[in-house]
C-alpha cells in the first residue's frame, strides 16, 4: 500500500480574519508517486492551496501535513514551479546559475560546492537544457525557461513536484515536451499539477482534485469535455483575493 505524503483535512482559509473563506472544508490526501491534477475555475483557490502546501500561507483551521510535518518543515522534499516568474531580464544570470539556486539551504555559509555543480548538471541533463547552461536565462523562450526552473527544482532531489499552471505561456510543442518529461519524473516523485485546462492534465493524472472553494475528487473516466465546465463551476463562489499581499 502506498504511503500518504500529503494529508489535508478540513482546511479553511481566508486572507483576512472575518472575511469570507477562499477555501472551506478542503480535504484530500496524496500518496507517493501519485500524479494528481488540481483543477478549478480562476479565483477558485487553487494557487492559495498550493501556497498553503508550500508553507507560504497558514490556514485558519484544519490540518495540513507534508511527510507528517507542518508545511515548510521539509523544504528539500518539495519542489515548486511557479505560475510565472517575475524577474528582471537585465540581471546577467546564466542558466547554470539559476539551476544552482536549487542547492540553496544545505549550508549556512559559503559558495556552491563541486557536488552542487554535479547535481545541477544532472538536473539540466534530465530536463534537456544542458546545452543552454552558459546562456543568459533571459534569452530563453518561455518553454525553455520553464524546463530550467524545473531543473532548478530538481537539484535537491525532491519527493514532490508542484507545478502551478505550467501550460500558461507555452506553445503546444513545448507542452508536449513538458508532459513527456513529467511522465518520466513521475517514476521518482509525486507530481501535483495545477491547471484550469483539464485537457492538459487528463492524459497523465491518476485523479483530479477539483478546487472551487471546497474540494471534490474525480477520476479521469468521470470527466469529459461536456461535463468539465459543470464540474468546475459547481457551487462556484468567487472570493476576491491577492496571492502576494498576505504571503508570510
Amino acid at each position, binding site marked *: 500500500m502506498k504511503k500518504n505524503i500529503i494529508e489535508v483535512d478540513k482546511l479553511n482559509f481566508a486572507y483576512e480574519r472575518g472575511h469570507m473563506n477562499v477555501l472551506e472544508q478542503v480535504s484530500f490526501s496524496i500518496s507517493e508517486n501519485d500524479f494528481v491534477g488540481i483543477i478549478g475555475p480562476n479565483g477558485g483557490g487553487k494557487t492559495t492551496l498550493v501556497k498553503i502546501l*508550500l*508553507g*507560504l500561507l497558514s490556514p485558519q483551521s484544519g490540518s495540513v501535513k507534508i511527510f507528517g510535518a507542518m508545511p515548510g518543515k521539509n*523544504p528539500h522534499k518539495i519542489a515548486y514551479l511557479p505560475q510565472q516568474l517575475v524577474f528582471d531580464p537585465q540581471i*546577467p544570470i546564466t542558466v547554470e546559475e539559476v539551476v544552482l539556486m536549487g542547492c*540553496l*539551504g544545505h549550508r549556512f555559509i559559503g559558495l556552491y560546492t563541486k557536488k552542487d555543480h554535479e547535481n545541477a548538471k544532472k538536473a539540466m541533463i534530465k530536463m534537456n537544457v544542458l546545452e543552454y547552461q552558459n546562456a*543568459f536565462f533571459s534569452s530563453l523562450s518561455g518553454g525553455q525557461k520553464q524546463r530550467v526552473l524545473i531543473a532548478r527544482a530538481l537539484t535537491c532531489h525532491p519527493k514532490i513536484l508542484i507545478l502551478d499552471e505550467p501550460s500558461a505561456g507555452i506553445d503546444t510543442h513545448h507542452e508536449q515536451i513538458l508532459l513527456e518529461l513529467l511522465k518520466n519524473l513521475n517514476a521518482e516523485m509525486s507530481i501535483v499539477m495545477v491547471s484550469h485546462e483539464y485537457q492538459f492534465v487528463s492524459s497523465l493524472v491518476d485523479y483530479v482534485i477539483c478546487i472551487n472553494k471546497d474540494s471534490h475528487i474525480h477520476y479521469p473516466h468521470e470527466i469529459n469535455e461536456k461535463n468539465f465546465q459543470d464540474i468546475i463551476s459547481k457551487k462556484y463562489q468567487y472570493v476576491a483575493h491577492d496571492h502576494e499581499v498576505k504571503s508570510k
Partner: protein
Amino acid sequence: MIQYFVDIFNPDMTFLMYATLIGIFASLAFGTMGTFVVIKRVSFIAGAISHCILGGIGLGMYLNQVHQVTWMTPQIGAILMAVVSALLIGIFTIYYKEREDTLIGALWAFGMALGLILIYYTPGYTDPMSYLFGSILMVGYEDLITVVVLDVLVLTTTILFFNKFVSICFDEEFARLRGINTRFYYLLLLILIAITVVMLINVVGIVMIVAMLTIPSGIASVISKNIKSMIIYSIIISLFTIIAGLSISYQINAPSGPVIIILSSMIYFIAVISFRKKIL
C-alpha cells in the same frame, strides 16, 4: 594627468596618496555592493540612507562638542545612522507593507533636516558642503584605516552569503521555499549597503552617492555574462573612474567628486547606447 601620478609619491603631498588608496580600497566595496543595489533595484533606498547620514554626522558633532560624548565622532554617528535608517526602511517595508517610495522620501528629508539642525546648534562653524559633495583630498590615515576595516566587513560578509544574496535578488519566493530567512538576508544586505554608503561620503559626498553605487554596476551589467563577472567589472570600473576622476580634477583644479560622477555617467551612456539592444 601625469603630474597626479608623480605627486602621489611626493612625501609632502601625502593627502594625494591617501586619497588614491581610499579610492582603491573603496572601489572593492562599491563594485560589490553596487552590483546588488542594481540587481535588487534599491538605488533609491541607498539614496535615502546616504541623506540620513547627514543626521548622523550632525548628531556625532553635537554630542561630541556640546555634551562631550568623546566616542561619538561624526564618523561613528554616520555609521550608526546609516545602519538605523537601513533597518527602518527594511522593517517598514517588510512588516508594515508601507510604500517604499513614500518611506524613502520621508527618511531622505528627515535625515537632511536633522543634520542641518544639529550642525546649527553645534558651536563653531561647520561647512556641510564637504559632506554633501565629498572631500577626498582632505582625508588622512584614520580615514584610510576606517575604509579598510569597513571593506573587510562588507567583502567577507558578501563572500559568506553571496548565493543567498543573489537568490533573494533574483527570486525571493524560491529562496524562501528553500528554507532561507529572506527577511534576515534582505536586512543584512541593506546594512552592508549602508556601510558602503558611509565609505562613499569622502569620495563623492552625500548628494552623489547614489550615482557611484549605480553607475559602475550599471555599466558592468551591460557587458557582464554573470553576477560574479558583473561584480569584477563593477570594481574595475569604479577603480578606473575614481583614479581617472582624481587625476583629471587634480589637473584642471576642479572638485574631484563631480568630476568622478561626470566621467562615470558619460561611460554609462556610451555603454548603454553601444551594448543594449534598441527596442523599435
